[in-house]
């Protein structure tokens, strides 16, 4: 006879995970500041941080106007994409779901390109259109995929791939036929590019993401149960339709806001939650904060690789995430099919 059973999850455990991941993120950000095409010795960085250097010094320019915003933006993007991945995986009950694969990112990109072509302002028009595009594409994917056997089937993923391919083509068509310089580069939309990162988008992206992820967190118990099945969730008292649509809209909004500044970056939302599920299990009360922060860490590292590996040139960051993610996706598909079993 066992006397007591251990709670699988406690508030303390969640806080410890959040704390550890935040520290790891902070450390990664600091370490990645040191890396770059222009060598800045650690000693100099410390003296800069201690404000002993002339503010016009090129090292300061590089550090604070190029590297730091870029690193912080990478963290922001990774946070959003991994959060999107973990929520889509739960709502669609499929471990292979991710904002990029499902066409949500390209939907957002499509919306953003349309907004830019019509000359709508970057602060409002672009994020709103990106949100509309993201929402429209996920609804399309769900309607195509949901036809017969519920959302678990791999039809959802297939329809995501198709919608993704179509929308990427539409984006490329607009860019190719438009002389408009506002459309940014092809590479930016195709593979994501963080090199133009500025501080100002983060002043609203970061608060939106933090609030959004907290709201999503309040649904973490609902998400746990929905992964078991929509009917089971009803039996256990979850308002299933409301939960699914509210979260899909919210995530589409977050992804839309981020993608319009980052371009399309794949596989982050697939890799990160998956690895963390192996460590922490399937409970979203830990998985959601761990994935969001883990996604930020992953993205900072991926972007650091992107800007240093073929220095002085650099790669679009989406190339790095795809190099890591695509083989991983194939591995998952081969070993587990579209279903998931803890190894």
């Amino acid at each position, binding site marked *: 006879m066992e006397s007591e059973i251990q709670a699988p999850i406690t508030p303390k455990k969640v806080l410890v995970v959040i704390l550890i991941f935040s520290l790891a993120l902070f450390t990664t950000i600091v370490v990645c500041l040191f890396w770059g095409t222009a060598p800045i010795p650690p000693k100099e960085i410390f003296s800069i941080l201690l404000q002993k250097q002339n503010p016009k010094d090129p090292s300061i320019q590089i550090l604070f106007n190029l590297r730091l915003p870029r690193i912080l933006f990478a963290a922001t993007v990774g946070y959003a994409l991994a959060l999107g991945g973990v929520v889509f995986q739960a709502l669609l009950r499929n471990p292979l779901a991710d904002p990029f694969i499902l066409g949500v990112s390209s939907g957002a990109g499509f919306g953003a390109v349309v907004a830019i072509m019509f000359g709508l302002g970057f602060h409002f028009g672009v994020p709103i259109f990106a949100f509309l595009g993201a929402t429209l594409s996920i609804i399309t994917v769900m309607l195509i995929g949901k036809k017969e056997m519920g959302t678990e089937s791999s039809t959802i993923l297939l329809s995501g791939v198709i919608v993704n391919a179509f929308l990427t083509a539409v984006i490329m068509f607009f860019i190719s036929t438009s002389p408009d310089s506002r459309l940014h580069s092809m590479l930016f939309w195709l593979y994501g590019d963080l090199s133009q990162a500025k501080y100002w988008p983060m002043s609203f992206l970061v608060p939106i993401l933090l609030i959004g992820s907290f709201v999503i967190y309040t649904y973490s118990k609902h998400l746990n149960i929905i992964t078991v099945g929509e*009917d089971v969730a009803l039996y256990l*008292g*979850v308002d299933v339709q409301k939960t699914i649509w509210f979260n899909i809209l919210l995530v589409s909004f977050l992804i839309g806001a981020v993608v319009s500044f980052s371009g399309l970056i794949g596989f982050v939302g697939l890799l990160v939650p998956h690895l963390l599920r192996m460590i922490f299990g399937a409970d979203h009360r830990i998985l959601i904060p761990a994935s969001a922060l883990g996604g930020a860490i992953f993205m900072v590292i991926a972007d650091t690789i992107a800007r240093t590996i073929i220095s002085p040139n650099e790669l679009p960051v989406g190339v790095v995430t795809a190099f890591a993610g695509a083989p991983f996706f194939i591995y998952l598909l081969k070993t587990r099919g579209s279903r998931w079993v803890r190894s």
Partner: protein
Amino acid sequence: MGEILRVRDLSFSYGDNFLLEGINFAVEEATILAVLGPNGSGKTTLLKILDGIHRPSKGEVFVLSKPLWKLKRREISRLVAMVGQESHFGFSFTALEVVLMGRFPHLKGLQMEGKKDLQKAKEVMELTDTLHLKNRSINELSGGEKQRVLIARALAQEAKLMLLDEPTSFLDPKYKMEIFSLLSKVVKEKKIAAIVVTHDLELSTQFCDSFLLIKSGQVLAQGRAEEVLTQENIKELYGCGTIVDENPITKTVRITLIPKHLGGKRC
């Protein structure tokens, strides 16, 4: 004995099609009602109405005298628990995590499972003999073990009425027996009622207290086994020939199917 469920003049239609019509019955505490009928007769629809998922076109459902349709989803799941046909879990939860999901309707907002919930989980896992499986992944369990974990989850809801949709299909005879024994034990210990949709004529007659025979959405017969499980009714229900007699040991109704080519037509 207290009445747990009352169904009054219930009908359910889909367009012009009546899937269920004019159904009346009640279930008392500490009893099991078996719902029998051929595939497509409306049994699963009936369960979904009793769990408040489908709204009846006509008639009323009362659980503990409360009208089901006026309750919120979360309130319903504190009164009615369903053990459906969950064959596969997309993500791999442990047995304990699955049982604790049954506490969902009792937890507020961000509240996590506390001492009371763990105590409850332990109690129902002991009752269903699943405590030793608590750290195993639900997908690694055998069919019988998984079914017992799902019953534990339903018990963790502390509902007064438990609905089970073919809980013994795909199980071997030993596990089938186990599930029915377990049900009969828990309804008595917890003073709850259970409704089992089943095709198991052999075991349901030994473990269930009353029977509801449904054909094409209408009640063919209802009552105790001896009254309703006659050769004629079973022939009418499934179109199968049978011998109905008494089990010499348990003294319950025994139904034996007779294949057509061996003379089943005449029975």
